[in-house]
């Protein structure tokens, strides 16, 4: 098992506050979920809890950014994307404001609250917005790197946060540039590209596959936009098939992004592991992974399918 890092979003903000006096942190009545309590206590003059006013939160963030502030605004991923899409589109993306939107408990990581709180399409929505950078960090190390990168790069961004604690899978030095996809395992038979919580499952699946003689490359991809096209195309050319793995609908997320790139420049089979056009429900992480087919066995099956397709394609 991987070591855990506690409160990665809240800890990242505390760290950024030391180097970025212009940082302002905003909550909408979910400060406990966002782990921002320590920041609020230490920097009350740079912290705002706006109550349950998500649309207003986006506008206030924009106004602060228009005055030179670096703004990190957080709430549940469903509320900071689909609930306030026009506000994000106009007040943040169109105006090119320096606002970093953090979505906590994205998609099926929100097991206890069920369908209304599960953002199955947040990444698709944010990807479609001009000027918006989009991240689904693969671990707590990556989340930290994303936050530091974004603090130093003005402009709109959406990042999925990690509540309470997250695994430390990546080497911090290697993960420092969050826009670069990282090859974590080598293999020639197929590539699994994983974002967010799916990296841990992808690594487990690939370890299983190695026992059967299938050698699979694993790519950790935290930045969906701008996406690391070069690494994706290299994997397509070198391994001949790709499996994408995401905690998100397969419509418009990582799988779509990868398909768009290889389809244009190096067509190979892309088998998508993700949520298939469905709203969620309550349940444990294990139950939801099985029900919505984003577990380790689903990645295993997808790799086998991709390898079969590659053979068929070659013949």
């Amino acid at each position, binding site marked *: 098992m991987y070591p855990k890092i506690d409160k990665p979003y809240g800890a990242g903000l505390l760290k950024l506050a030391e180097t970025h006096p212009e940082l*302002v942190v905003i909550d909408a009545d979910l400060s406990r979920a966002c782990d921002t309590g320590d920041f609020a206590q230490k920097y009350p*003059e*740079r912290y*705002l809890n*706006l*109550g349950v*006013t998500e*649309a*207003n*939160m*986006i*506008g*206030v*963030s*924009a*106004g*602060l*950014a*228009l*005055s*030179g*502030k670096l703004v990190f605004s957080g709430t549940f991923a469903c509320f900071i994307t689909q609930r306030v899409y*026009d*506000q994000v589109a*106009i*007040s943040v993306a*169109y*105006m*090119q404001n320096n606002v970093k939107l953090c979505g906590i408990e994205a998609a099926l990581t929100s097991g206890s609250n069920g369908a209304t709180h599960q953002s199955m399409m947040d990444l698709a929505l944010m990807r479609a917005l001009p000027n918006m950078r989009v991240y689904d960090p693969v671990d707590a190390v990556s989340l930290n790197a994303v936050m530091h990168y974004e603090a130093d790069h003005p402009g709109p961004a959406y990042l999925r946060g990690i509540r309470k604690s997250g695994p430390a899978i990546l080497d911090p030095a290697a993960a420092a540039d969050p826009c670069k996809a990282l090859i974590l395992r080598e293999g020639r038979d197929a590539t699994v590209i994983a974002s967010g919580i799916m990296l841990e499952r992808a690594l487990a699946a690939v370890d299983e596959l190695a026992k059967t003689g299938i050698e699979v490359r694993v790519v950790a991809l935290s930045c969906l936009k701008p996406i690391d096209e070069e690494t994706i195309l290299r994997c397509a050319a070198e391994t001949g098939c790709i499996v994408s793995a995401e905690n998100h609908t397969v419509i418009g997320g990582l799988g779509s992004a990868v398909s768009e790139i290889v389809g244009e420049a190096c067509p190979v089979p892309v088998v998508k592991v993700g949520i298939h056009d469905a709203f969620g429900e309550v349940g444990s992480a294990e139950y939801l992974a099985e029900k919505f087919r984003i577990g380790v066995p689903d990645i295993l099956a997808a790799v086998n399918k991709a390898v079969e397709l590659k053979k068929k394609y070659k013949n």
Partner: protein
Amino acid sequence: MTNNDWSQDEILDLKKKCLEVRRNILDLTFYGSSSHLGGSLSSVEILTCLLFRIMSINPDLPLWGKRDRLVISKGHAAPGMYAVMAARGFFPAEELKTFGKSGTRLQKHLDMHKLPGIDASSGSLGQGLSIAAGMALADRMDGKERFTYVLMGDGEMQEGQIWEAALTAAQHKLDKIIAFVDDNQMQVDGFTKDILNVEPLVQKWESFGWHVQRIDGSDVEQILKAAALAKSVQGKPHVIIADTIKGKGFDFMELKVEWHSRGLTEDEYCSAINQLAAAEAAFTALSGKGA
């Protein structure tokens, strides 16, 4: 600031400026492109008073760091804003004729990245007051004493986000916000009271914790007085409900639903220009008497 901080000559000058601004709006529409005439004409006096008298700004340095800021939350009043900006010297009046045309800086709704002097892009209603609240909060954090002005419409009061922002500004006692509601009583499809009544606005804003004034929004002296009073009252954000007339200045447009957004035929343009000329002549006569 008191009543006596401006002379009657200055009031007369502002009224004349309003005629120039109305002429700019006509030109922008006739030579440029169909525009939101009704809600631009109703806001002429408010915007003219703001840019010529109330706000601390510099047309030569539109991004001056200490300027007062103005968020046009009713972004379809862009023609009114452009017309006042041209009169104030932000850009040559000739450019108004590019309004709505391919490649123009003068978009149908305001784009801050195309035109320096616009403090926030707008067009999708209901978002400006939140942005102003963010601006005022930032100013407080930075110890800046400047004001943030907002222009909203009465139809816009139907947007829920306005009231979220109203709560926020009151909660944080953002007394550097001075918001105007251009209450021209109409929205796209008809009279606001018939579609979704937003009254009583005074009581609503008061109950939300704001300092409220209601004025004749076509009277420049009342606008100046209200802004001066707002600046002097501390501890609450300020809203000035300005009773205005949609399509103000031209008899065939006033309070007519179809003039929310339209182009001008040559006959209509000439008729409107004639009405302006008559108003200008009346002012000249008045100035003569004054002298």
